């Protein structure tokens, strides 16, 4: 880390070149690699259950997919027929639809809020920041419980039944704050001189925004959308409160847990994991190729 050691050493050593002793260098080498090694261990720890899910997607089980069946050899039948278990693909499609709608709306509303909170001066800004922060500091179970009472006692008279749309509404609500926080971070780290330069070059406010500001903020918005989608897709607690008879993928897994989760859920869970990996890797590559030179 200390790449500028020679210069700084010469100051205090009266001209003698400063070199860390061999022992110090060995020490720092070990220290550096201990950190990397423990980091890799933690990553492995994160992946253990994912690997378990993958392995048990090949289990040739008879009644329930809990223990490995020693008689049956590993099978590909669940991979060939991922929708084989009743309801599993319906649940997946529901989750993807909810995730898509919630992500779209939450990203738009959250980005607008972030722009107002960073770029505009208005009274009540501190209170507004608080309103955005508190949903993140509220336990999910309280959010779910309060939305359930609202939907059951307040909204049923408007004909809103628990189901798909109540889940969407709830997901948009808890995603907004995370979007605001992500986009805000990006906006705050922008160099305002870029926009000033655009205006000096006679760009109007509209073209300054669309040609300079927006492209610079876009990575933050994309990151926020990804975060919103993953939060929505993986949410169980709030969804369980407001879903009624609608079944999302996490709810499907939870409900079928007592009878034994079908291996098709393992196939879908692991495929979504791989899909997410590939998508983000592709995104990173594209981003690296088109990296703006600013």
């Amino acid at each position, binding site marked *: *880390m*200390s790449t500028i*050691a020679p210069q700084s*050493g010469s100051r205090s050593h009266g001209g003698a070149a400063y070199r860390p002793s061999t022992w110090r260098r060995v*020490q720092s080498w070990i*220290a550096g690699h201990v*950190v990397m090694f*423990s*980091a890799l261990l*933690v*990553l492995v720890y*994160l*992946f253990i*259950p994912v690997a*378990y*899910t993958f392995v048990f997607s090949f289990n040739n089980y008879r009644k329930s997919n809990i223990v490995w069946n020693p008689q049956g050899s590993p099978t590909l039948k669940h991979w060939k027929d991922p929708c084989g278990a009743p309801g599993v693909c319906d649940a997946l499609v529901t989750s993807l639809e909810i995730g898509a709608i919630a992500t779209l709306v939450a990203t738009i*509303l959250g980005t*607008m*809020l972030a722009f107002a909170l960073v*770029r*505009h001066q*208005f009274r009540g800004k501190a209170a*507004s920041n608080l309103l955005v922060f508190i949903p*993140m*500091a509220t*336990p*999910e*179970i*309280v959010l779910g*419980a*309060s*939305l*359930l*009472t*609202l939907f059951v*006692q307040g909204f049923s008279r408007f004909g809103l039944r628990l189901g798909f749309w109540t889940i969407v*509404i709830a997901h948009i*609500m808890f995603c*907004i704050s*995370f979007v*605001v926080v992500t986009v805000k971070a990006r906006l*705050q*780290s922008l160099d*305002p001189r870029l*926009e000033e330069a655009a205006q000096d070059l006679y760009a109007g406010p509209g073209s300054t925004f669309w040609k300079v500001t927006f492209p610079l903020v876009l990575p933050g918005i994309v990151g926020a959308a*990804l*975060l919103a989608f993953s*939060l929505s897709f*993986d949410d169980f*607690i709030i969804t*369980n409160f407001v879903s009624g008879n609608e079944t999302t993928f*996490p709810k499907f*897994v939870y409900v079928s*847990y007592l009878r034994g989760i079908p291996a098709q859920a*393992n196939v879908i*869970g692991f495929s*979504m*994991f791989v899909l*997410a990996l590939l998508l983000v890797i592709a995104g*990173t590559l594209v981003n690296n190729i088109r990296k703006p030179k600013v």
Partner: protein
Amino acid sequence: MSAFAHAAGGNAAVTHQDPPARRRSWATWLLLLPGFLWLLVFFVFPLVQLFTVSLQSKYPGYPGYYYRDVNFGNYVDALTQFGAHFGRSLLFAGLATLFAFLLAYPLAYAMAFKAGRWRNVMMICIIAPFFTSFILRTVAWRQILADDGPVASTLNFLHLLPGGRITETWVAVVAGLTYNFLPFMVLPIYASLERADHRIIEAGGDLYANGFTTFRKVTLPMSMPGVLAGTLLTFIPAAGDYVNADLLGSDRSTKMVGNVIESQFFKVLGGFPLAAALSFTLMALILALVFVYIRRFGTEELL
């Protein structure tokens, strides 16, 4: 996704100030209105509604019916009947937060300072497990830690497991909470380390501080906004969680407040007021703890 760092309002890094141009106020309100309306209607209003429910009383003789009232008896019931559950929630969440911090810091540190171009790959590795669904992963842990699973049988073989089992005990619940909320600890710490000025850390070394002293006096304080955000984002959902206690714990000795709230809502006829009171008590406890925590470790003391 360097987002979480700002969650607790900690902006340690250099942020550019906006040009002081006056914006038209109608534009501000147009930007604010839709998002705020959503949060008001679907966050603030439901909380108010839940609060009124928590004060309702039962109709005597009509199970499942209640009337509008100002009855704090539900709160008394919540604390007297379920005090142990509150204690467990806070204790388990606290332990999980501590363990998550110990696991997350080396990972975040390695990503920020050692990983080089592997940084993005590591970032992806931390987020991608979300897509396997946390229920599936928690169930996987249950099978891995089960009595006849690899971990418990090895420990039993070595006579290292006093109770003879891992699942159905608090150990499994805390382990599950630690695992599930670990990414929420890693990401903010990483974000604050990444934005820290590396030259300051180098200066520590130049001033003859050894590695550990540099870490303790320079790196750790600079990452405190991230640590603060990370502990909050881990502790709060962990304290309200009921899935881990449900899937990994036992029926009696590991139930948390979340389990009680869930069963009062869904399985007990007329349990709504008590469940609402439990929810608000949990929220008040958490907010009080968070307030004390921010006052103690908040930004003023870190500078």
